[in-house]
């Protein structure tokens, strides 16, 4: 989704109105309950969150300083950026792939069932299809990607093949490299 993302992909940006900001805040809290205690970090009272509009019906919420915090897909769901997730690793349910999958995932490949069924992989959270998830890797501390589950964790355990998680944002993609939007 962000493979070729750069500042060129931005089609417009504006400071959010306080009503928009409140709506985004409560939607994000509803979606990631653990974030509530830290909501001030993302929506400080005296600063305006910036809504960045990008090609492909994509929005990025950025701090007033231009740090991308969350992105929102076409269907309205919010995802933390990887840099946000590294600071607050409890925001998303997690799945841990085996070592062999790392190089593919950080090149943007979707997470395939075998990468989660190896004995060195761990399905750490129970998820339904359609849920935003964080992808971790065997013996690595930090998440390497975020994506959307394409099947439930129960199905990941019994299926032999197929896409388990669609990779939306990964370490090294355009959004990762864009630590500040100008």
């Amino acid at each position, binding site marked *: 989704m962000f493979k070729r993302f750069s500042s060129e992909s931005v089609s417009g940006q504006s400071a959010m109105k306080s009503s928009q900001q409140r709506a985004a805040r*409560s939607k994000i809290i509803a979606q990631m309950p653990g974030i509530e205690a830290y909501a001030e970090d993302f929506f400080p009272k005296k600063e305006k969150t910036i809504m960045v509009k990008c090609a492909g019906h994509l929005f990025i919420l950025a701090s007033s300083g231009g740090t991308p915090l969350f992105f929102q897909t076409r269907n309205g769901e919010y995802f933390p950026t990887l840099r946000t997730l590294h600071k*607050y690793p409890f925001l998303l349910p997690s799945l841990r792939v085996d070592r062999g999958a*790392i190089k593919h995932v*950080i090149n943007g490949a979707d997470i395939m069932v075998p990468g989660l069924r190896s004995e060195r992989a761990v399905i750490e959270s129970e998820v339904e299809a359609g849920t935003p998830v964080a992808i971790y890797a065997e*013996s*690595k501390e*930090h998440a390497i990607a975020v994506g959307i589950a394409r099947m439930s964790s129960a199905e990941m355990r019994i299926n032999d093949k197929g896409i388990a998680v669609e990779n939306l944002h990964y370490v090294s993609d355009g959004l990762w*490299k864009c630590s500040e939007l100008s």
Partner: protein
Amino acid sequence: MSAQPSSSTDVATPSTATELSPQEELPQKPERDPRYPLSVLYCPVCTFPPELHEYHSRTHFEKCKEWLRKNAPQHFPDLFPDECAARLEALRLAEEQGVSLPPTTSDQQDNNQPKVAVPIEQKTSGGKKKKTPAHIVLALGQRKGKKQVTIVYGLDLFGIKLKDAAKAAKRKFATGSSITISPDNRDVIEIQGSRQQDFAQLAHSEWGVPKDVIFIVNAQKKKVKAFP
């Protein structure tokens, strides 16, 4: 959709207020854990976290190397497998010949004192010496279906606190680790995943457990030396 103001004044108790229990004072306000936000180290050369550098191309990696050497030495075994293998081989030879090697730059900070764990004497309540040999034994077990765990026996025999060991395993392997009780009623730690060889190395380097008392239970259920 009422935005809850949550300034720090909520927490301060005015001196005139009647004493209330903390729960009554702060109705379901979620509490922050002071650990967050975590501060994560990224390589200033390429933006990757240090632990992912092994997936870089060799040429790119060369550029990051010096920064990594200074700032993330704990990732060396993954990042510099060749260098580390050479160093380990040199250590092994030195050990055989009974000489000590000069520490490498990255070893210096934590190697000021030689660390050697010695088994502590085990006494039964009657005061007699127990017959349990002072060994560290690493076995594999299964949890929740397919999930594999490494069970570490015998740390207590070397005076290593299980809590410290579980923490160290968590930190070094970035995986779950906890203190638990084995079926035969011994205090053990359990590490997620198959970590026998990794933990053997850790026990030796972190607490100076002699290599010849560390054992692994292999696939044939035989107890074999971790460092043959």
